[in-house]
């Protein structure tokens, strides 16, 4: 994980960044909005909104079809966005960048296409206790359909991967599928170590990078993994656009996932010839505006610099962990690793005995937006021994005032439930 922050990193100007996000100028329930749910989806800067708006106003046309001016502009804008994404994750070739609906579809693409072509009864898919349902259920489905075994890497008490028994866990494994950062605990995982371990036993490695690509520099060649899935809407881009990166030779050998227009070179009454990469996996009219919007999001993050993003989030996470602990002491439990270097800016909280749903409802009265629930990670919630948590997740536009507002609202929530007549 390239989480290092060199001396030369330009500090992120949080006030200037916040000013780029129109939604963050609004108020909620009479208070300025304090948006702490970027792990669910990020807000969008005006630079991205403008690019999407301009696309529809000026160059809206279907891609790879019309030989007329605006169709060429739309096609070019879309393929430029693909090249931006390629550079952003240091992928060797833009033909390895497959656009999907979201990260979930990207993982399902691998499960259906590569999984069905390569896995059979007794083969093992090794996942981790940190996974989001998106990186669990597709493998459960293959298990039900093919008799594939889904095996789990356990966690340490502070929510890191327990790799003690990795050698025995790897027996019979054909695919290691892990998240690079937990959406519940913020835990950063040793992707390279697991990719190397997978390759050593002849297995492949898939990374669900939905929670790390928006927050840390990403280099898929440094990870030396085989597939990477992530989503656009958590990294300042629009909804409805995700990415699958895969090694060319793997993607070339895989059968198409969905059939239809765009994904073919030729169709006859007898059959079809699949298109070249990446279009082989992009059946139908793609989400053109969303792809171009994702390209604009990449430009926006590049203009800040991912090293600066990471440095800002580490500093803010450190501030949050310290100030919340100082003020709330034993009333507040924050799950996950305590060392800021081991985690992203995701704080899963339990406050007194107030149920997370009730807590988030009271916080909302102060405009503080946190997510309550199981965060689509029920196996992890069971490991933690809780049904739900309230999760505050940080991003580039958050600053210390947001943490202070959260801290103040927690006190108010405690007072609200304490002062009700019993």
């Amino acid at each position, binding site marked *: 994980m390239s989480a290092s922050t060199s001396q030369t990193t330009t500090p992120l100007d949080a006030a200037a960044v916040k000013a780029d996000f129109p939604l963050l100028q609004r108020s909620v329930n*009479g208070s300025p909005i304090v948006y702490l749910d970027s792990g669910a989806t990020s807000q969008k800067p005006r630079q991205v909104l403008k690019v999407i708006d301009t696309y529809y106003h000026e160059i809206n046309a279907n891609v790879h079809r019309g030989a007329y001016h605006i169709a060429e502009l739309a096609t070019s804008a879309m393929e430029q966005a693909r090249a931006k994404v390629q550079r952003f994750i240091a992928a060797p070739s833009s033909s390895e960048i497959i656009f999907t609906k979201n990260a979930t579809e990207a993982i399902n693409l691998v499960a259906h296409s590569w999984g069905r072509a390569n896995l059979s009864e007794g083969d093992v898919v090794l996942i981790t206790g940190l996974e989001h349902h998106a990186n669990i259920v597709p493998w459960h489905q293959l298990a039900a359909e093919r008799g594939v075994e889904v095996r789990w890497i356990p966690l340490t008490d502070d929510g890191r991967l327990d790799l003690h028994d990795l050698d025995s866990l790897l027996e019979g494994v054909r695919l290691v599928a892990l998240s690079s950062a937990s959406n519940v605990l913020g835990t950063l995982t040793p992707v390279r170590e697991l990719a190397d371990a997978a390759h050593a036993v002849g297995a492949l490695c898939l990374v669900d990078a939905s929670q790390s690509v928006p927050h840390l520099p990403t280099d898929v060649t440094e990870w030396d993994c085989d597939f990477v899935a992530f989503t656009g809407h958590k990294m300042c881009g629009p909804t409805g656009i995700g990415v699958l990166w895969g090694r060319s030779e793997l993607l070339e050998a895989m059968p198409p996932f969905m059939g239809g227009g765009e994904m073919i070179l030729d169709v006859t009454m007898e059959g079809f010839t699949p298109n070249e990469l990446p279009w082989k996996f992009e059946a139908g009219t793609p989400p053109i505006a969303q792809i171009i919007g994702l390209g604009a999001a990449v430009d926006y993050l590049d203009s800040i610099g991912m090293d600066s993003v990471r440095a800002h989030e580490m500093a803010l996470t450190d501030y949050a962990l310290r100030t919340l602990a100082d003020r709330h002491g034993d009333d507040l439990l924050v799950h996950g690793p305590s060392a800021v270097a081991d985690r992203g800016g995701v704080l899963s909280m339990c406050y007194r005995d107030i*149920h997370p*749903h*009730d807590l988030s409802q009271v916080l909302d009265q102060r405009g503080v937006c946190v997510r309550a629930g199981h965060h689509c990670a029920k196996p992890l919630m069971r490991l933690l021994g809780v049904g*739900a948590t309230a999760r505050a997740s940080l991003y580039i536009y958050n600053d210390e005032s947001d943490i202070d507002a959260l801290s103040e609202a927690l006190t108010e929530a405690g007072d*609200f439930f304490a002062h009700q007549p019993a």
Partner: protein
Amino acid sequence: MAGLEDLYREIILDHYRSPRNRGELDTPPANMTEGFNPLCGDEIRVYLELDGDTISEIRIGGQGCSISQSSASMMTTAVLGRTVDEARQVLKAFKAMMSIHQGDLDGDPPPGVTDGEEPISLGDLEALRGVVKFPVRIKCATLAWNTFDHGLDEISA
């Protein structure tokens, strides 16, 4: 703007802090039905025992937020000792109260549930009416009831 007091009425917090009919029943003779709120992870178990056509015992297990727990507790007091048909009437009236009509969101009272002649009185359960102003929480309030509904269907099957 809907305030917290619309949601967290005193009687709701009372049932949350002192839940009625909480626990388990032996199965059999009781029937146990599990319910999940996939959004927030709340889990509930409704244990039901009939004496002839009358609900003679009901217990609630599981965990959840104040709205789901208090709604479950209030449900037990509303249906215990009633016949299955009567309980279904209460169930229907409660679900009608929890369904979102545009009028509710605008602050108008929802249309009365008549089902024949007389509206069913929901008594204390009326306190949960404010939940409708918080659409995300409706699933919390109805979790126990939907589970109870399935339980009645299982018993009748």
